[in-house]
């Protein structure tokens, strides 16, 4: 396994500075984020409070009927611990009205739809309180595409988007997040008993090592397998990364004019800074 540990003191300072500057220079003071009770949103919550002050961080807890009781309790506990404003908005009524009308039972469709309802609520709340939506996606799920396009991927910024899940655990420990949050098995919590590692077919420490070798060190699939990593896990990870590239790019536009979105209309994101 690759040692993915970072200097978390520097990482924390760097991300706190990023959140502070990114929010203020784009004309905002606040962020809104979904607080799930997991380590990703707990980490972003901690860093956002350090960057903006607890009065400028707004947490939304959006349980569905199948969400675990523990997740909801932990999300409330975290919000109270940090003293941030939070609101519990159950999404069961909205979601079930749609699922029952269209008789939807497919887990993937249900999971994606729940994620997109949460997205819609987050952006609505951001409009209400004049805030930017802080995404809580990490590099592992962004690269593996293990996230919903225009669902949990939708955000105004990705504060922990360049940290593998293993590194989010390291940062979470450095930040002294409550032990039960750090110890919890990663889960999208879309149905009882679901875990990321069951769905992805390998533990994060293995997947993160493979991604680090492939992406950061530019090793080939063959070189990684020769290092002793399981062939099917490596191939599956590579397939996931390339197969979900569409989620990480702007939608292609058939180019007609001399300046087209995505090709030659290239203003920076921070144009209003």
């Amino acid at each position, binding site marked *: 396994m690759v040692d993915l540990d970072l200097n978390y003191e*520097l990482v924390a300072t760097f991300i706190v500075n990023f959140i502070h*500057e*990114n929010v203020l220079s784009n004309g905002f003071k606040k962020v809104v984020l979904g607080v799930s009770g997991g380590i990703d949103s707990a980490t972003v919550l901690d860093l956002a409070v350090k960057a903006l002050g607890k009065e400028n961080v707004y947490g939304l807890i959006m349980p569905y009927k199948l969400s675990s009781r523990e997740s909801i309790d932990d999300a409330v506990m975290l919000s109270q611990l940090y003293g941030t404003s939070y609101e519990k908005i159950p999404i069961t009524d909205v979601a079930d009205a749609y699922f029952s009308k269209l008789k939807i039972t497919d887990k993937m469709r249900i999971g994606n739809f729940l994620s997109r309802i949460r997205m819609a609520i987050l952006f609505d709340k951001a409009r209400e309180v004049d805030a930017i939506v802080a995404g809580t996606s990490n590099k592992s799920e962004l690269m593996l595409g293990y996230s919903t396009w225009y669902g949990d991927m939708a955000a105004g910024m990705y504060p922990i988007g360049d940290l593998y899940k293993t590194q989010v655990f390291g940062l979470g420990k450095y930040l002294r997040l409550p032990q039960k949050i750090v110890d919890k098995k990663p889960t999208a919590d879309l149905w009882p008993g679901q875990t990321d590692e069951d769905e992805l077919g390998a533990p994060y420490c293995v997947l993160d090592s493979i991604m680090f070798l492939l992406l950061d060190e530019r090793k080939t699939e063959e070189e990684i397998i020769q290092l002793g990593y399981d062939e099917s896990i490596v191939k599956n990870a590579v397939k996931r990364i390339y197969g979900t590239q569409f989620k990480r790019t702007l939608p292609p536009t058939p180019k007609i004019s001399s300046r087209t979105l995505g090709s030659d209309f290239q203003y*920076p994101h*921070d144009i209003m*800074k």
Partner: protein
Amino acid sequence: MRVKISLGQINPALGDLQRNLGKHVEFTEKAINDKVDLIVFPELSMTGYSLKDLTEKVALSLNDPFFKPLLSKSKYIDIVFGFVEKGEDKNTYNSAAYLSQGKIVHLYRKIYPPNHGMFEELRFIGSGDKIKAFNTKFGKVSMLICRDLFHPSLAFLSFADNADFVLAISSMPLRGLKGQRPAIQEMVDIACLSYVNFYQLFVVYVNRVGFDDGLGFYGGSFIMSPLGNKNIEAPIFEEVLVSGEVDTEDIFKKRQTFPLSREEDLRVVYDNLKRILEERNG
């Protein structure tokens, strides 16, 4: 000769010329009050870094009246800053200007704008091809811009041209947060330590802070002496004005102890470089 130098480690506003000019004037006035001889600002200090399509909007020729407030300050202090130059050839350049006594003393165009990975400078600007150590009140000065610093050939040319100071201005994005310090900061130190030890001159490195589109610039500006130590060093991540004094006699002393410049034979370099180029071109 003792020279007091300020490092203007600022966080420029992306594409906002007026705000950035205001910050230059403010920092320069502080330095003047502190009786500083030379203030150095980072690469593209007047415009910010990740400009992309904003490049053409913020491009200015060096004789543009926009620079008048700084030119008039330069009657009291020498000033180095970075900007997007609108060249007479109708190209844009990532340039640095040296102002002194109300005049433009020197203009340098970045020779190696990087164009790979996160860098896409050559999509929007051209490259320079001239480096020259020019005369100032404090000795001969050569300027480098960011990636230029990682090309030892340019530091060598500065040395060959008898520079006392290499002013390296930078918008160096942070990467590598595993060690005690950012990995890129270590790399800058390695380059500069080599130059001060073997080219035996002062390196004044000024890097910006803040973020453009998620790229974080770490600061950590410094002056490194030919004696191999840092005379002054700014903290990382903070917008700050740091000043310190250096003694140019350090160059003489170092070169008496370890006379590399006396040994250096430019004809050997020239003849062999000529041969290499001829062989390469067949």
